[in-house]
């Protein structure tokens, strides 16, 4: 198995996801299968191939610097779990 349950736990922690050990072992197995599958690419001949930053051979299009988005706070906040005074509320976080 290429991915350990402990690594799954660490990544879950970085994303603030709670995960019990059984689930972590299950994901470690699934992720390992995926990595093993992808690992086949290591055998591909890539000599002389330029690394790519994107699969499409295209350039980023630029947008003129202009305000085009109207205020839609009420619309967005209608579907938020909790708001107050225009702010989105989340469980307290203090770093």
């Amino acid at each position: 198995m290429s991915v350990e349950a402990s690594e799954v736990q660490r990544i879950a922690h970085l994303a603030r996801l709670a995960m019990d050990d059984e689930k972590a072992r299950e994901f470690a197995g699934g992720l390992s299968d995926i990595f093993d599958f992808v690992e086949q690419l290591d055998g591909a001949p890539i000599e002389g191939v330029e690394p790519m930053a994107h699969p499409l051979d295209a350039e980023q299009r630029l947008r003129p610097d202009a305000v085009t988005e109207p205020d839609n706070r009420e619309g967005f906040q209608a579907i938020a779990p909790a708001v107050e005074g225009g702010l989105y509320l989340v469980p307290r976080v203090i770093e």
Partner: protein
Amino acid sequence: MEWETVIGLEIHAQLNTVSKIFSGAPTAYGAEPNRQACAVDLGMPGVLPVLNQGAVEKAVMLGLAIDAEITPRSVFARKNYFYPDLPKGYQISQYELPIVARGHLDIELEDGTIKRIGVTRAHLEEDAGKSLHEGFELMTGIDLNRAGTPLIEIVSEPELRSAKEAVAYMKKLHSLVRYLDICDGNMQEGSFRCDANVSIRPKGQTEFGTRAELKNLNSFRFVERAINHEIERQIDVIEGGGSVVQETRLYDPDRDETRSMRTKEEANDYRYFPDPDLLPVVVDTAFVNQMREKLPELPDAKRARFVEQYGLSDYDAGVLTAAREMGDFYEAVAAGCGAPKLAANWVMGEFSAALNRSEVELAEAPVNAEGLAGLLARIQDETISGKIAKEVFEAMWNGEGDADTVIEAKGLKQITDTGAIDAIIDEVMANNPQQLEQYRGGKDKLFGFFVGQVMKATQGKANPAQVNERLKAKLDG
């Protein structure tokens, strides 16, 4: 043990575009919470970022101004971390291929020598929102107006050797971004922020010591104080037999101390990878040349020109060119009164003192360049003396009208009529027979007494050079 300090700065400058880096929402400061946060800024499912050309232009202008390499194909990457003011769960930044690579900035040290500081890189990224922890029961309020505001992060080489050098570098960069008009430089509003990496090593050692990263340095004064504190703390730790740990420390200006925020073990693993939503950004030679055309005269060039063109000292030229607006103001005053040195003395002296006293910005000053030039012209044509001019200036500052109006209203016009001056001198001589006798008996120092009496009798309005000349003639005659 003699210690050497090693400092590198990371400066975040908000680019002053009207819209965000990846969305068409406005970037104005101080709006009601979340009125400037659109679906892209909120990280709604299905949205896609589209890069703002204005942000790319401003980044390239900065690169050119610090003589840096402009990367022909730069790449945006996702910097992953979890925090509620970052709704997507990642910040779009640049990692391996930043838009600006390797440049430099020259700073002036206290002894006047110039030191060249390397700039490792400058990359484009988006700002995060703001978390408000106060005022909610067990909750945190999130304002995403700032989310997506374009930032350029400018990273220096670890070549700064003292807190003073760090401040000089920061001020130089601050002046530069305002000259370029790519950032408003407002530190209180967070438009220009600084993190400092600080370490110490025994003098002569080439390897670096373990560094601490100081955050939240939002004024020049804090940068200097926080770095000096951190140097002392690290020396104490090492000389007490301990070792510095790699960590992030937060500066608390109220207590004037730094405290640990997180250590290396707790540090985030950002898992950078190229953002599949954005294609490589291509900046070709034509684009770079177009930006080069747009560059204004930069501070160092302007300073050299002021010395050359106006005959100012290097120091004065440095003061007058530190901010672009001040340089423009000075040039307008100098042109308006035709006396560049007099203009320099007044702009740096009375005028700057009045700005500080009234705590107003140059643009809001009650006396504009034209007004000040008008006053200085009256010194030039000897309508008033320099001393009276200060009184006139004060009145102008208080809104009593332009120089001519004030001079007229207060009757401050200089007395240059020789007959009138002679009459006053005669009167002073007649009223002070004892001093006159002593003076004529050889007590030369009393000359000053007579000048004083004449000026007093004319309320300072007599032309000083004429008074001197006429007095000399009459006293000795």
